[in-house]
């Protein structure tokens, strides 16, 4: 046969030398040490660390999901702040500042969690530029009060400060984690039940159990985390047994998993159709009403999301368990007028494959009602700047209503108030602004929720947004795994009780 080229032979001979070109498998640590505890867990996460594990951005979420970091507080299933590193807290000066009492805890490097260390960690976070999303615009300051108390203050009254501190952006690291260049080294310096021991670029990480964790020793002896961005690949990893837990399985792949490995939970994410109220034909509230009446959300939930989503009832879905009981009917809706073949462009993005499909279903429904519909699909990064400049008549967008602050009102202010920074409907309505501001000022959690629901009714009354579905997230969990944490706010994933 054909003689191979010289450089090919060289390439083949070099293969052993090139072994360094393979990823290290991360399985080198003692696997399943057999001391009666669970073995090591292997998990597949969807979002690779983009910023080298800086806690001040999205990577903080990964750190939190792997049980590496904690803040002073954490969110419980109802979305309220409950104790984490802080045992208790109280507000002073009418909510301008809060005093947190710390519990007895240790950093993963063996030093004690002191008030000074916590204050310094929060100060570092506040000084980060760009500011972490959870405290953007807050002007947070922190100082130690005695040995076990930290006083955290904001420039203005901030009733949701304890919620903000639950964000992994504000996780606490030991003083030695903070380098001179403002970077944070999370390897072995945090307080969670698992400590990072080795980072392999943005493809994998190795974690060992932190035995002195204040909440008790974790059951799994360690975690091998892989970052696999492709949903099909994550599903395959679970099916072949490469990983024990795979997060965020795309709807299209769920059917290929064994039934017993599919676990779903409601999330605070919605998919909604935002209508441009400032330019184009949807300036007319009658046409917005016509669009709303034309849309059958059940077809989207069932036909596109295969039941892994619920038809939307409002802006707040079932993940916020308090919302359903407090909902009031939308007020002041306009009467639908006939679109008479008027043409619109709906924008959406392909990063979530369900969105273009939803848009196509909407396209058909709207065309049946008399609109002429064109679609524009790009990746999100290529779409966003046009989305924010009134370029399209409508947009199908998936949005997390809890955002980084963990507070349900923040999203109303950013998405539907005149000055909102992510106001995709370009809504500017005095009544909405008034109600959103009122909700934002409310400090009692229950009253705050009531006020938020009032604002929701007013927003839905304008028909600026048509909520389509409340999304669920599917986690693939191997049948031998027990105690994985399904968190509607997507901040927890592996806990002390997770084992194999």
């Amino acid at each position, binding site marked *: 046969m054909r*003689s191979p*080229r010289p450089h090919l032979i060289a*390439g083949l001979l070099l293969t052993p030398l090139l072994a360094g*070109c393979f*990823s290290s498998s991360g399985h080198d640590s003692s696997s399943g040490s057999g001391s009666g505890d669970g073995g090591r867990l292997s998990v597949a996460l969807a979002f690779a660390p983009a910023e080298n594990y800086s806690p001040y951005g*999205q990577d903080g979420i990964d750190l939190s999901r792997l049980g590496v970091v904690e803040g002073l507080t954490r969110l419980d299933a109802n979305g309220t702040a409950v104790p984490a590193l802080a045992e208790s807290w109280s507000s002073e000066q009418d909510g301008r500042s809060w005093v947190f009492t710390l519990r007895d805890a240790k950093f993963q490097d063996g030093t004690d969690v002191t008030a000074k260390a916590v204050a310094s960690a929060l100060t570092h976070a506040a000084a980060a530029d760009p500011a972490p*999303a959870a405290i953007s615009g807050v002007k947070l300051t922190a100082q130690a009060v005695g040995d076990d108390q930290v006083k955290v203050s904001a420039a203005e009254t901030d009733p949701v400060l304890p919620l903000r501190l639950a964000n992994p952006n504000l996780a606490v690291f030991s003083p030695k984690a903070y380098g001179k260049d403002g970077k944070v080294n999370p390897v072995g310096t945090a307080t969670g039940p698992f400590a990072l021991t080795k980072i392999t670029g943005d493809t994998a990480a190795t974690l060992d159990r932190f035995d002195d964790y204040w909440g008790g020793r974790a059951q799994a002896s360690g975690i091998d985390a892989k970052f696999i961005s492709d949903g099909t690949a994550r599903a*395959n990893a679970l099916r072949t047994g490469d990983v024990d837990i795979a997060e965020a399985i795309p709807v299209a792949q769920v059917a290929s998993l064994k039934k017993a490995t599919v676990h779903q939970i409601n999330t605070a994410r919605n998919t909604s159709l935002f209508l441009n109220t400032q330019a184009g034909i949807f300036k007319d509230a009658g046409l917005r009403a016509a669009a709303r009446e034309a849309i059958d959300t059940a077809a989207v939930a069932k036909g596109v999301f295969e039941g892994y989503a619920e038809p939307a009832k409002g802006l707040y879905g079932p993940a916020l368990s308090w919302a359903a009981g407090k909902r009031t009917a939308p007020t002041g809706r306009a009467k639908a007028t006939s679109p008479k073949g008027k043409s619109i462009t709906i924008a959406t993005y392909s990063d979530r494959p369900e969105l273009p499909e939803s848009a196509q*279903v909407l396209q058909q429904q709207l065309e049946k009602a008399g609109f002429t519909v064109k679609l524009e699909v790009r990746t999100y990064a290529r779409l966003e700047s046009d989305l924010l400049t009134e370029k399209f008549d409508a947009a199908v967008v998936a949005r997390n209503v809890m955002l980084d602050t963990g507070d349900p009102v923040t999203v109303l202010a950013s998405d539907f108030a005149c000055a909102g*920074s992510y106001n995709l409907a370009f809504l500017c309505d005095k009544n909405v602004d008034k109600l959103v501001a009122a909700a934002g000022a409310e400090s009692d959690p229950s009253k705050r929720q009531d006020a938020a629901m009032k604002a929701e009714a007013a927003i839905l009354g304008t028909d600026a947004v048509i909520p389509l579905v409340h999304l669920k997230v599917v986690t693939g969990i191997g049948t031998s795994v027990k105690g994985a944490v399904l968190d509607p706010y997507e901040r927890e994933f592996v806990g002390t009780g997770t084992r194999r």
Partner: protein
Amino acid sequence: MLTAALVCAIGLLPWLSRTDPALTVLKARSAERTPDPATLRAIRVELGLDEDPFRLLGKWLGGLLRGDAGRSWVSDTEVLPAVAQALGASLLLMAGAVVVAVLTAGATCARTLWLGSRRRLGGRGPGGTGSAVLAALPEFLVASVLASVVGVQLGWLPALGWYGPRWMILPALALGLPTGAILGRMLDDLLPSAFTEPWALAAAARGVPPASVARQALRRCAPGLLPNLALFVVGLTGGSVAVETLFDIPGLGRLTLRAALAQDLPVLQTGTLALVALAALAALLARFGVRRLTGPALRDGALHSLHRPTPPAPRVVPLVYGLLLATVIALGLPRGPLALNTTDRLQAPSWTHPFGTDALGRDVLARIAHGALSTLGTALAVSAAALLTGVLLGLLPRLSGPLVDTVNAVPSVLAALLVTGIAGSGPWTPALAVAVVAWSPLATHTSALLRQERATLHLTATRALGAGPWYLLRHELLPAVLPPVVRHALLRLPGIALGLAALGFLGLGAQPPSPEWGLLLAENQPYVERAPWAVLAPAAALTLLGALAVTAAGGARLPRRRPKQPTVTVRPADSGPAAPSAETARHAVLAPAPTDSR
């Protein structure tokens, strides 16, 4: 020079594409973060974007001279180790793929080799429906099938990761099979001419063993292919994004794609530079290989071509393919390609939906039929443009050589971004973006064949008879070079259709719910395991097109019509989508026995 221009163009990418890099960097770091002005300002300050682009570029270049490629804008980690690591993984993957490709190519032309070395080739035309089908298969489809069947269901080989040689096999197969099929077709195209050369006849007469004759024939043809192999080496290293994604391989393709989308310029520049360097090295090696194989004969103009193989007998096969494709289209046209019905989603083929339905319950047959015209139209137009450019530039190897090496090293997304930046996003931008890259393998092929043809004795003879350069070009060179290149261009037609669809995610090209074929493949890709028909049907249509194109080029006429006289002009074929008939032109890629060249 060209490399410098390329690096400059990348350095100016954000300013060309009028997209704020602070915004794309922010989105790459955290997709859900609201881009408020304060955040963007902070990023701009952090990255030093307020300076003018030329100073940024200068700084980066200055650092590069000191061996420091800067830090990634997104992750703020050092670029060089990350790129080196990714390059290593990609090179390894590429090496595996090339091994597979060479084996595939061998299998593709095994029949020709076997028959030819025994002088039983006769007037047989190229076979190769099988290889044409393989060449037209999209990489991601091969990869998906391998991963889910061999990796997941059978569990024979790992379907995911990059931890050792065992992990290489499936991705290397996915990349190597289509590549090998293309190389094999090109080789198969040249071999019959080699076997009709006098040395082969002499060898047979002297009783030289067939294996030896076959080996020498391969050696005769290799110089025409080596430059293309070099192109594949670079293309596979930098452009295997789909396979890298599906098998989760931390390779250079994914790295540069992400960097291009995030406008992470230091990473993009370094990655592209690495690819350009690799391209230069590969081209050098290919040139060296060609010289070793035919050098003295080239220099002395001692290649001679006395015999021209008889054109392969025209066959009915392409007509069958054409008819099949036409039937599918005719059956699908009366159906509605856009009528979606989500209760009927992912239905298996049945009488009501002969090709099944897609994820939104649309009839796949209808979508294929309605998408045919736009897909074929654009893809053919791009192919024709690429062919024209490729041949024209291939005639000027001094000019095109470095250009090809540079263009080929540019990741296709980057090329699209640059083209969009310069030309704006009009309806023809995606076609332009694909054409900008698509001509390079054709130019390489042209110039490789041309170099050999220039060194033939009959050319010297014609020149001695007083023929001017134009006469030589029109009557001797082009007729010899065009047919294989045209067949090569047709072989790449399906790839171009896919390439056009791959740009959709930049907001270029066909948008849903258009039934363009590439889009059909892309939108049904997530369902490939649950509803294989939704992907296989458009893939089959594409491969049918590929097979049609290849076989039509080898004789797309009814058997009773015989070519009367060798002519120079390339005539449209009697059937098939404007596949130029080429076998009337003379095969003249001939030369003496390679043993002469020592």
